[in-house]
């Protein structure tokens, strides 16, 4: 039952995505974009990733798609200007590039040169990463008395890190890693959001002429 629903949602999102890029009217394509986001967020919620699914609903459907809809309706473009675009041979110019990129992606999907799951990956890659981690710990503590203590700290830190999350809910663990360890990235993201608030104001602000 659950897998049928997941397949249905995936199919719906792919179908809506195809309808986004093929429809002539930009308002219709923005509405299908909302349909893609709703399908994907339902997919994530059904898988058990609740917080990100709800965030998709709030941010994409509530903010980004409505912003697109406002801009499309505000600019009041004549529909003729948009529909005559694809009929003058411009479409066939870009078709070979699209075919090349599409065939590359289909090769990736069909033959899977990169393993897509843990079970398909050989264990030597894990061991390689572990060796690299131990090597970096060893070299950073080299020459000091912490040479064996470095390895001890590395492994015990990892164990503590794993144990701290086992009793958490999903949202608690997201918040715990967001506000403690990755605090700097949160500050950088807030700077980027401030830039995104000031930038469109500066861009679209029309200064009034003053007479001296």
């Amino acid at each position, binding site marked *: 039952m659950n897998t049928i629903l997941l397949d249905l949602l995936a199919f719906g999102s*792919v179908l809506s*995505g195809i309808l*986004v*890029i093929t429809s002539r009217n*930009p308002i219709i*394509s*923005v509405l299908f*974009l909302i349909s*893609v*986001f709703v399908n*994907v967020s339902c997919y*994530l919620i059904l*898988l058990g*990733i609740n917080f*990100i699914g709800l*965030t*998709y609903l709030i*941010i*994409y459907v509530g903010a*980004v798609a409505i*912003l*697109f809809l406002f*801009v*499309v309706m*505000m*600019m009041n*473009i004549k529909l003729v*200007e948009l529909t005559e*675009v694809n009929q003058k041979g*411009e*479409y066939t*110019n870009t078709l070979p*590039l699209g075919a090349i*990129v599409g065939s590359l*992606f289909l090769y*990736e*999907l069909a033959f899977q040169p990169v393993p*897509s*799951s*843990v079970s398909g990956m050989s264990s030597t890659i894990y061991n390689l990463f572990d060796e690299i981690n131990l090597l970096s710990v060893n070299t950073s503590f080299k020459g000091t008395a912490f040479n064996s203590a470095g390895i001890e700290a590395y492994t015990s830190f990892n164990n503590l890190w794993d144990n701290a*999350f086992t009793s958490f809910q*999903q949202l608690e*663990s*997201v918040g715990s*890693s*967001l506000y403690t360890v*990755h605090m700097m*990235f949160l500050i950088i*993201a807030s700077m*980027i*959001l401030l*830039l*995104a*608030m000031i*930038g*469109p*104001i500066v*861009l*679209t602000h*029309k200064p009034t002429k003053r007479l001296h």
Partner: protein
Amino acid sequence: MNLSMVLFLIGILGFILNRKNIILMLISIEIMLLAVTLLIILSSFSFDDILGQTYGIYVIAIAGAESAIGLGILVAYYRLRGSIAIKS
């Protein structure tokens, strides 16, 4: 993995094949960002790791900032030119 790859393919084909409609190009960028975030989140979920969701939140925030700045540039361009055709 297949769902996000197909969504990314749809986004990149929409970006390539519609060269003159700039709103559709921005929408295709949104679809590509959605596909990449979905791939990160699903991979981290299958690894039973929480850092992927943290990273997904950052990608969502930066995608919102990107779409706001892109639409601001689009509105300013429309005021200057009077139309949004890329090649005239």
